[in-house]
């Protein structure tokens, strides 16, 4: 009886190993998936684009106090078309971020998820006390299970991730390209806004009377300093947004370029 049992155990292990060999292929670790996850983790960096789109939409409100009546009327007309057109600009980064997040989830590390269910299996086996299965057997089997699950999910994952990268290559590239152009146009537009706001102060302050308008001079010079600081900060944000976008563009291109040849 004992020899029959050990014989069966051996048989079982052999079965598992055979199954493993059949299903698994190579159970290599996947640095590529780690790379994809690192890329996906950068998705929030696109928020800078989102923020600058919002700022672009608020251009009229910032200029308004500095505009003469005619200029104000013209800017209101421009603002209406800006609001309408830029409603579409806002959605671009949402879509790209959703894609990056899905890509990251697809390349995700699921080992931890499995650990708990493996434990459950282990304890389930102990419900057969007269089977002769001991803890060490259970441990060996759960260990195998872990390898098995990884062996099967890893290549599936890798295939799915590569397929997604391949299919998304064109739309992602074009959307990122459009975002880059839009950022550039926001930036140029922001330059003009800045020069309207600061230019008004620059034009008006010299005409103030140092004796009579002391308070006004103090306030406008202080406002001028604040505005200069604000626009300098926005300039830095534009640079950062562009750098982030370029980095994402480049890493995506690298991932796409290093795709294995398509199957089928």
């Amino acid at each position, binding site marked *: *009886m004992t020899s029959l*049992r050990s014989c*069966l*155990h051996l048989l*079982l292990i052999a*079965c*598992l190993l055979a199954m493993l060999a059949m299903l698994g292929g190579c159970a290599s670790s996947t640095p590529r998936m780690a790379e994809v996850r690192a890329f996906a983790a950068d998705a929030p960096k696109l928020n800078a684009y989102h923020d600058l789109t919002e700022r672009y939409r608020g*251009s009229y409100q910032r200029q308004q106090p500095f*505009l003469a009546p005619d*200029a104000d009327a013209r800017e209101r007309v*421009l603002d209406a078309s*800006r609001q309408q*057109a*830029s409603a*579409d600009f806002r959605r*671009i980064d949402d*879509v790209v971020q*959703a894609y990056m997040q*899905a890509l990251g*989830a*697809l390349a995700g590390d699921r080992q931890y*998820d*499995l650990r708990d*269910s493996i434990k459950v*299996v282990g304890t*389930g*086996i102990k419900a*057969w006390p007269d*089977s002769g*299965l001991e803890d060490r057997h259970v441990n060996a*089997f*759960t260990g195998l*299970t872990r390898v*098995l*699950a990884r062996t*099967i*999910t890893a290549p*599936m994952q890798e295939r*799915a991730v590569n397929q*997604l990268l391949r299919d*998304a290559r064109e*739309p992602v590239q*074009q*959307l990122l390209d459009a975002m880059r*152009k*839009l950022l550039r*146009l*926001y930036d*140029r*537009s922001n*330059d*003009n*806004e800045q*020069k309207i706001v600061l*230019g*008004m102060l620059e*034009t*008006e302050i*010299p*005409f103030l009377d140092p004796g009579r308008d002391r308070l006004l001079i103090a306030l406008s010079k202080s406002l001028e300093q604040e505005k200069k600081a604000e626009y300098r900060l926005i300039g830095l944000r534009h640079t950062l947004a562009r750098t982030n976008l370029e980095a994402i563009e480049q890493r995506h291109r690298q991932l796409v370029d290093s795709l294995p040849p398509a199957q089928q």
Partner: protein
Amino acid sequence: MSHTTQVDIEALADSLSASADALHARLLRAIRQRPAAGQPAPTAQSAPPPISQAAAQALFENEVILRQRANALYLEAATLAAAGLGGLQQQLLDLTAQAQEKIRKIDRIKDLVALTGELLSLAAAVATGAPERLIAPYEKLKQRVESL
């Protein structure tokens, strides 16, 4: 085609912005100019600019017009740059949805853990040496393997 147009519009806007910059530089020079020699030289602080305020404002108003024109063109270029992105966005959204479907599929691999559990149940049943206990785990295992 629309790309060329977008680039053209942007270039035109750039040149309007540059003209506004040139105008502004001229305006500032006029405002800051020292009074001609021979006239009493007041301190820099209190010297009124040689150009009248109305003239300066009129010049600045022209500069603002140029900048607003430029910004309208930048907006037009932006609209062109974003034109036709709707389809691409939809395409990417579809791919994202497909990816999520695949994630669910891969997560079903967790079933494998259950599979192994059933395999072990079968083994345990075998090990008890009671053949009638084999039938249930065997059927479950068979179903599981077929569903993979």
